[in-house]
């Protein structure tokens, strides 16, 4: 298969990212020569085990954790399930979970199906967000009770990029003796994280969101946190996650974390500036367009913009004609009939929710690409609006 990635303008990095060439290079020996099992007694396997441990240290360094607090998994979703189900098994008498209305399906869907999974009735508090997509800490405080087994709140929202004050929320949970999990797949590598200085008990991250391959994730388990494995099996990961290690991808993730650490400043300066230029350009040149999510408390790479009176799938397919890749929160793109649960939770009106487009950048984007998108978008929206029965009356 030929994908011609050099011909596309890729602005869908919250969906997945390009594997960094340095990452591929670091992985190659483990896809060819170095195929030993890290658990083996012989040097041929043992040296592979050392590479896994080095990767563990690189990852720990990026998020301010200790190497022994890193557990490798297959993806962010597995990490989320592991953390939440572990807490529920640790405290079988506690049947209450606090989370938000804007979580990724990895957490949302798990919470919705807990009763079936565990055979017990659970009470879920879904914290609301305001129009900017931010949480109210007072309602959070009030939601916590002696029945609460775990809090699960994302660090950064995948659709809007809005950041939640998870460090403060973890401290509040700690005071109440409640475990705290954060799905940080969108935040790791984009904003500085120093877990050693927080009360966070569990954190999920995913390789493919930060230029490592798909199929590898991490669950951070703070030292001293009670833990019950999700996948039982061999003694890998010190008995915390059975199954032979996905060595090449783990090594790749280690390299990706080194790169992310080195690029953190660029992400928050150059990439942020590109995002700001794109955002200001679109809001300035397309009438009736608006930003979704808090203007400041946001990932540096994400811009979620609604174009009123037009529909997202139609916008995306026109962008596709110009090889521009992005995402939409419209109903039609998901196969469901309702627009994004995140935008609905924020109370974004239907006129805008159906026409939302998420641009998510990475260090591989250039200023020329931003200019190209800024050149093409106004015409696309204008064309669709001439077709829209609602446009004229609102012009």
């Amino acid at each position, binding site marked *: 298969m030929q994908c011609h990635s050099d011909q596309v303008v890729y602005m869908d990095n919250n969906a997945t990212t390009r594997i960094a060439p340095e990452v591929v290079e670091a992985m190659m020996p483990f896809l060819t020569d170095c195929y030993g099992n890290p658990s083996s007694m012989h040097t041929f396997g043992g040296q592979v085990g050392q590479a896994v441990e080095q990767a563990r240290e690189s990852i720990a360094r990026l998020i301010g954790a200790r190497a022994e607090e890193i557990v490798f998994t297959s993806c962010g979703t597995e990490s989320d399930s592991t953390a939440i189900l572990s807490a529920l098994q640790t405290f079988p008498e506690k049947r209450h979970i606090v989370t938000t209305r804007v979580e990724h399906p990895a957490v949302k869907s798990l919470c919705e199906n807990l009763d079936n999974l565990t055979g017990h009735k659970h009470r879920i508090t879904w914290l609301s967000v305001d129009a900017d997509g931010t949480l109210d800490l007072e309602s959070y405080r009030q939601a916590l009770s002696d029945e609460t087994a775990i809090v699960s709140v994302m660090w950064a929202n995948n659709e809007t990029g809005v950041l939640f004050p998870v460090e403060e929320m973890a401290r509040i949970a700690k005071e109440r003796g409640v475990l705290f999990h954060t799905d940080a797949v969108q935040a790791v590598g984009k904003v500085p994280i120093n877990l050693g200085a927080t009360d966070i008990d569990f954190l999920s991250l995913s390789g493919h969101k930060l230029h490592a391959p798909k199929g590898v994730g991490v669950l951070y388990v703070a030292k001293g946190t009670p833990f019950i494995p999700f996948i039982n099996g061999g003694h890998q990961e010190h008995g915390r996650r059975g199954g032979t290690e996905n060595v090449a991808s783990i090594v790749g993730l280690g390299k990706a974390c080194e790169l992310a650490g080195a690029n953190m400043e660029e992400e928050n300066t150059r990439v942020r500036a590109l995002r700001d230029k794109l955002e200001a350009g679109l809001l300035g040149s397309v009438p009736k367009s608006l930003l979704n999510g808090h203007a400041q408390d946001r990932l540096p790479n994400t811009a979620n913009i609604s174009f009123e009176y037009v529909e997202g799938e139609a916008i995306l397919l026109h962008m596709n004609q110009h090889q521009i890749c992005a995402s939409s929160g419209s109903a039609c793109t998901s196969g469901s009939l*309702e627009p994004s649960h995140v935008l609905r939770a924020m109370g974004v009106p239907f006129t805008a929710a159906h026409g939302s487009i998420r641009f998510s950048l990475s260090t591989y984007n250039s200023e020329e690409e931003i200019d190209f998108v800024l050149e093409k978008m106004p015409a696309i929206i204008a064309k669709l609006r001439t077709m829209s029965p609602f446009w004229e009356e609102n012009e």
Partner: protein
Amino acid sequence: MWEYTDKVQEHFIHPKNVGEVENPDGVGNVGSLACGDALKLTIKVDEKDIITDAKFKTFGCASAIASSSVLTEMLKGMPLAEAKNITNDDIAEALGGLPKEKMHCSVMGREALEAAIADFTGAILPMAQGEVVCECFGVTDLEVIRAVEENSLRSVEEITNFTKAGGGCGKCEERLREILVKTVEDLPEKAQSPPKEKRMTTLQKIKKIEQVLEREIKPTLKKDGGSIELIDVDGDFVTVSLRGACSGCHSSQTTLKEYVEKKLREQVLETLIVEEEK
């Protein structure tokens, strides 16, 4: 990503007849911003009751725009009496098929047409008089019943694909199931089991076979990079030609017998035998 036919893409990227005809004789407005799609169809009708012009304005996804565009093309020059018989299936067929989750876009086209014709003739739209069962998308029981009857729907999921009913909060699911069961029970014996109908004319067979090919078999084969064409129907013998990745593939015989023949037997006629063109 949706699998759209070339026809859908063509009508989406280069839609025909966008706008509103001047001094329209009939206007059909269906859908709403909240629903995520809406269509305003305007038609011009001459003294011989022939539709001389048709234009559309659509808010919606690619298949909604393509359905509207192809509908206006079908309508131009068509006698009103004939236009009244256009079904959502005719619209979908003119586009070379739609993904099943998008069938409601063709239904919207048909509803706009009915509304425009009713506006012209001064009739009252019967569908709108039903009782609203899906509040999220404003779908009435009469609309659901008709979709079930005309498209041989047999599950709540299919009802959602065709009418959007049940696709929002999901509260009406039980009610939809009741309507489904009742409608299927009420169907005359013959219509209830069209697959087992013994005597079908060759033309009926061809039409039905093509429908199943377009709607179910082609989209599935397309996922593996293949396609299929109907070559001939002679009695119970159906000759097809496998295209793309399917042709010359080792498992093509298995595909033909285990999948294509099975599907056609289930949905058209139990006695059909599918063969590949030599």
